[in-house]
């Protein structure tokens, strides 16, 4: 073996870009194609959000093992029935002139003062975007930082015992970062009054008409979304690594579609039905999202995540834990409420947390069609 070969093997093969990364990078570039100007800032940050948030994607964290997905449930599953009932409701919603979506993202970090450890939500941002139904109706993208906050009531009590600090110095992937209680107002990212009419589904640019014409048949949708496309230029050897047979990857892809494209209700319903049919995706029954909204949830286990010292993580952050991906739907409308990762096997940085601990969230605070120009809400979500 020569040096070049050794170097090649030592660097290994990193995980391929996520759908969200590709979608946002392409949107950023396409923003340029449409108007010859850069679009960056909040829009880019939104694209990077979940990458930073997604624990397995974080530097210094290696995904180990590849547990085989759980067998499909053959029994009558009341939780899945609830999701299917929600899917029916999803079929009955009208469209409008503008589509908007309001997302809140956050990542849990551990504080470990002598008075007792607690979790805070950092990287806490809100994104608001709207897009005209037709090209020429315009589009806009807004972002703001939200205050870091203790995650739960128990965390808040521990935070108070620690003297209610306003700054939180936490380990983040490969460095310490200090989050604080500060917030920013809404900042606008390069609005495009001539834009609109285009969305990105699974990395592919689509008009509203094309989205309206998507199939609603669960099998057709599964085929469309849950197969990795080599013809889109992703080299085969990398395509293999984004393993579409994994149930958590399917949830991730479906969440991307539900969060970023105005899927007509019948397509949304079809996609939810498709999810319930995937092996390894199970229902959790009733669930409550981080905003306290009641819903019905689907979940899929991820492979265990190990944090080692490779990127310099301190001892208290090292170790192995496991999370599940979880999508919570509004039972009345079938809309996605939250896309989150929830601890199932404590360990590593989360060794003193309980199963059910929310490791990160990507909440859809509001989303839908309207006939008046959408504006982001002034009030804070938390």
């Amino acid at each position, binding site marked *: *073996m*020569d*040096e*070049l*070969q*050794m*170097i*090649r*093997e*030592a*660097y*290994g*093969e*990193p*995980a*391929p*870009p996520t759908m969200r*990364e*590709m979608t*946002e*990078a*392409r949107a*950023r*570039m*396409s923003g*340029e*194609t*449409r108007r010859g100007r*850069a679009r960056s800032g909040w829009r*880019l940050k939104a*694209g*990077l959000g979940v*990458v*930073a948030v997604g624990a397995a*994607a*974080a*530097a*210094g964290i290696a995904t180990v093992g590849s547990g085989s997905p759980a067998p499909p449930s053959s029994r009558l599953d009341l939780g899945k029935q609830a999701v299917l009932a929600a899917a029916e409701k999803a079929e009955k919603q009208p469209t409008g002139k503008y589509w908007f979506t309001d997302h809140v993202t956050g990542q849990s970090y551990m504080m470990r003062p002598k008075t007792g450890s607690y979790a805070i939500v950092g990287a806490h941002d809100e994104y608001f975007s709207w897009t005209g139904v037709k090209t020429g109706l315009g589009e806009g993208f807004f972002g703001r930082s939200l205050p870091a906050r203790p995650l739960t009531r128990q965390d808040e009590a521990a935070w108070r015992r620690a003297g209610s600090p306003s700054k939180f110095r936490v380990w983040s*992937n*490969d460095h310490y970062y200090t989050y604080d209680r500060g917030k920013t107002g809404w900042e606008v990212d390069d609005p495009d009054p001539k834009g609109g009419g285009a969305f990105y589904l699974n*990395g592919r*640019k689509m008009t509203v008409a094309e989205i309206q014409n998507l199939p609603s048949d669960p099998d057709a949708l599964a085929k469309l979304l849950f197969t990795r496309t080599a013809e*889109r*230029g*992703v*080299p085969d050897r*990398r395509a293999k690594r984004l393993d579409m047979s994994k149930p958590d990857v399917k949830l991730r892809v479906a969440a991307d579609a539900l969060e970023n494209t105005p899927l007509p209700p019948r397509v949304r319903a079809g996609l939810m039905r498709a999810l319930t049919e995937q092996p390894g995706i199970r229902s959790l029954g009733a669930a409550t999202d981080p905003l306290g909204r009641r819903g019905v949830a689907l979940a899929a286990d991820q492979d265990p995540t190990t944090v080692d*010292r*490779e*990127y*310099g993580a301190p001892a208290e952050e090292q170790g192995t834990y496991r999370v599940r991906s979880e999508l919570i739907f509004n039972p009345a409308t079938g809309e996605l409420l939250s896309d989150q990762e929830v601890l199932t096997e404590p360990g590593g940085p989360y060794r003193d947390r309980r199963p059910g601990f929310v490791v990160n969230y990507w909440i859809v605070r509001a989303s839908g069609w309207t006939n008046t120009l959408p504006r982001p809400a002034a009030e804070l979500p938390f």
Partner: protein
Amino acid sequence: MTGEPLTADPPRSGSPGRTDHSAVLRTSLQDPERFGDIFDAYFAEIHGYAAKRLGPDAASDIAAQTFLEAFRRRDRYDASRAGVRTWLYGIATNVIGRHRRSEVRGLRARARLGPVQDEGGHADRVDARVSAQGLRGRLAGALAELSDGERDVLLLVALADLGHEEVAAALGIPYGTVGSRLSRARRKVREALGGTNPMREVEDDHG
């Protein structure tokens, strides 16, 4: 083999059925949307290269920035100098260059993970163990100590599989400089690993 007429070289990067991306790029001057084909063809690859050098978090930003800059500069692309893939690696290398300190810091941290212990095995087995353990120890340390130019050349050859001519075109440096940087870089890496593998000392430099 004898008596056959000399024919033109086959297209360098022309795997069968692959679109000629130089032509696509030319078209994108008039029709910017066509640049999307180039994005589709190379984004994952450039992202992978960035992820290897700077980790997955930074890779997102680097890959997005690379394609944004490529799009902006597409009118300056010269198909006679480099293929589109090579050209993209050149831009990516520039963008990665803005993260040099972070790359070197990362390599030094990995160097501290400690050398691979020599159990006196066969040279190839030792090498295999060095690489199977990933980027750490002496190998990472050696890469950290290279000059920026040497590291760029070495990694474009080792990780991006570019030939000498392509590296020269990507980085805008003379062909001869590629060869000298590469052989210096390889020698330094070899020397750094020498302790784990004495066999290396006597091997010729093929760089």
